[in-house]
Every structure is written in structure tokens, then in C-alpha cells.
């Protein structure tokens, strides 16, 4: 990988990587650190990364760093977002925000799987490579996560 290829990866995947890291950690600073760390690893391993597999490599590094970040902090909150949001309301039925809160209910592993699936459109086998799980495990964990999200949506509807 040459310098030009690396810089192209920065322009192409830095935003998506940041969104993924931000949703995984729930913290903007942690997400920036993860993005910087992921690209730094890519630069160090530029000779080993296969051309065309840079995106998968970046998300693999970011996923592992987000898991480590979660284990260090032991919790994830969207408190900052909630406090700084002017449009937030307990009675706000915005599906996106409800889903964000539902996402926070998941464990770090399930959350990463859902984000890789929905945000980046990876297949089961690709997610298995990124996360180090088997394809069957990915499928089972994803289905469990979707049921949790669905039940949270049902509970919100019931409250409302």
C-alpha cells in the first residue's frame, strides 16, 4: 500500500469508522481515539494489508478497540447526547433516538454486530472475519440483538 492508497482510505472510510466507533462507545472523544488508532495500525501494517481489504481491516481494529474501551469503562451512556440535545423529550417518538437508546441496552459485542450489519451492510461471513466469531455465532447473536431491540420498541409503544 502506497501513501496515496492510504490517504484515499482516510477520505473514504474515516467518517464511517467514526460513526461506528461513536455508536459503539457512545463517546465522541473515545470514538476519535479509536479512529486515530485504527488508521495508525493500518499505516503500520500497510505492507501486510491486502488491497481491497482496507475497510474490513479498519473495522476489525475499531471493533476490538471499542470492546477494549467498553471493558475499561464497564458502561456506556448516551448521557452527553441527551443533555446537549435541544429536541430531546421523553415523549419524543423519534424512532432514531429510541433505537439509539435501545442500542445502548445491548452488550458491546451485540452492539458492534448490529452496527456492522446495519451501518456497513456486511454479510454474516464478513462480520465473522472482523469479529473473530463463527458465522453461526454471528447469526445467533444478531438475532438475539434484534429481538432485544424489538422488545424495547414494543415496551416504548406500550408506555406511550
Amino acid at each position, binding site marked *: 500500500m502506497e*501513501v*496515496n492508497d*492510504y*490517504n484515499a482510505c*482516510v*477520505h473514504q472510510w*474515516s*467518517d*464511517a*469508522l*467514526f*460513526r461506528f466507533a*461513536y455508536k459503539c462507545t457512545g463517546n465522541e472523544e473515545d470514538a*476519535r481515539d479509536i*479512529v*486515530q488508532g485504527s*488508521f495508525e495500525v493500518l*499505516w503500520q501494517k500497510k505492507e501486510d494489508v491486502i488491497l481491497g481489504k482496507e475497510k474490513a481491516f479498519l473495522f476489525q481494529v475499531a471493533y476490538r478497540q471499542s470492546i477494549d474501551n467498553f471493558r475499561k469503562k464497564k458502561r456506556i451512556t448516551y448521557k452527553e447526547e441527551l443533555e446537549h440535545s435541544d429536541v430531546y423529550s421523553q415523549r419524543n417518538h423519534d*424512532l*432514531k433516538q429510541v*433505537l439509539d437508546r*435501545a*442500542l445502548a441496552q445491548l452488550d458491546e459485542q451485540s452492539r458492534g454486530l*448490529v*452496527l456492522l*450489519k*446495519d*451501518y456497513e*451492510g456486511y*454479510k*454474516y461471513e464478513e462480520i465473522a472475519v472482523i469479529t473473530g466469531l463463527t458465522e453461526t455465532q454471528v*447469526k445467533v447473536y*444478531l*438475532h438475539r440483538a*434484534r*429481538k432485544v*431491540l*424489538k422488545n424495547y*420498541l*414494543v415496551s416504548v409503544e406500550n408506555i406511550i
Partner: protein
Amino acid sequence: MVNMENYEELMLLAADGELGDEELAQLQEFIKQHPELENEWKLYMATRLQPDETLVYTAKETLLKKETKTITFGKWWMYAAAACLAILIAIPLLRTGEEIKPADEIVQTKTTISEPPIKTEPASPENKPGPTETSEAVAKTGLATQLPRVKKPVTAQPVKAIQQVQPTPPQSEPMVAEVTPKPVAEPQSPPAQPSVVAVVEEPVHVKPATPRTHQDAEKEMFAWMPVDEHKKKGLNDLSVAITDKVEKVKEIKNKIRNADVSFKIGRSELFTVKF
């Protein structure tokens, strides 16, 4: 085939985007046939997250790398071998310049004239050397400082000096016996001996007492050589040419000593050797 046992799994696969078009159509047909499953179907499809395009990484410039010129030394061993070879070639040149010296030493051939054994006896009227003997002794002692001489036939000169190249001691003795009683040795020629050039040549490395040029020394060396004149000239010319080459090598050596040797590949300098 969709049924009540597998419809939920198919719904989850559809939410993950892993369901094929045919299977998706069958599932949708099944849901139409079972309206109570419609709400569950909508909830599963609502769990699909949509990326927030407003979230962007604003510090991309900190991630970018600048292009730098790099010189790859994939086959570094080739460059190392070339550098070692260059050094090995340079070392003999430097040492050759030190070893080559101007011909300070002059190779002379010493012309010795063997004498009858009248040498170390104290001077006495009887043993007093005659003028011829004197001249020979002077010649003999002066050989160390004199130039090599052309062979000269010694004929009726100092009788004692005359002796064959391969003299026989018995012959000399009678001559000595003849001379010693007389205060002044009269030159006596050997009765039945033709004039003999008594020359015993011994190459001797003698350092000149007085400074002289290399060319002069060479000329003197060539002068006594038993070769034709035109060949002597050729030898002289050859000697001059060799001397010129030696001087040039010395100049190169001095230049190398006063300069640095840098090894480059194209326009890229690998390293510099300072002498």
C-alpha cells in the same frame, strides 16, 4: 416453505438482509395470509439502524500521510558487495603509490680485478706498489663511489692486476714472486698469456654518494650493458615511460589522500569515505 414454526427466523433473516428474493416473497405472502403477524413484521423491520450521515470525522488532515522519497534497498547485498569491491580495488592503488619509489638505488656492477695476493702487506720497498698497482688499488677502492666502468682490456698495465677471470692461483704466485723483490715493480706481461680482460662482475646495490637524477642512473646502468646502442635507446625509452607511469600513480594517490570518495547510485549518495 413458510410456516408458523419458521416465520420468525425468516423475519430476522429479512431484517438482516440475508433473505433471498424468492424467500422474501413467500414470507410476505404468508404474512398476508396471517394479518396478526403484520405488526411483528413491522417491528423487526424497524430494528434496522440507519447510519447518521451528520456524524463525520472532522480531523482527517491529522490522519493523512505525506509522500516521502524513499530509496529501497531490496537487494542491499548487491550494493554492499559493490562497495566492498570498490574498497578492495582502491586499497592496492593506495599501497602501490606508497611502494613505488624513485630509483634511488643504483644497481651497479662492480668491476673487480682480482689481484695477486699482495694486499695487506705493510709498505716496504720491496712491496711498495708501483704506480700501476697504485692506480689499481685506487680503482678498486674507488669503485664504491665511482661509476660502473666499461670493460677495458688490461694489457701491459699493472702486472699484478692482470689475471684471468678464472685465474689459477699457481699462476699468480709466480708473478708475485717475481714482483716482490723489486722495489718498483716493473710491468711484466705474462709470457704466454694474451691480454685478458679481467672482469668479475658482481651486482651490487650501492647508494649514490651524490644526488643525481633517476634518468642519469638509468643511463649509466644501460651504458655498460652488452647490448647494441639502438637497443639501449629503446630500453632507455621504456624506462622513461615506466617512470612517467609511476609518477602519475603517485599523483593519483596524493589526490585520493586529499579528497573524499563518495559512492553514489544515480544521484543518491550512499556513503562517503574520508581518507
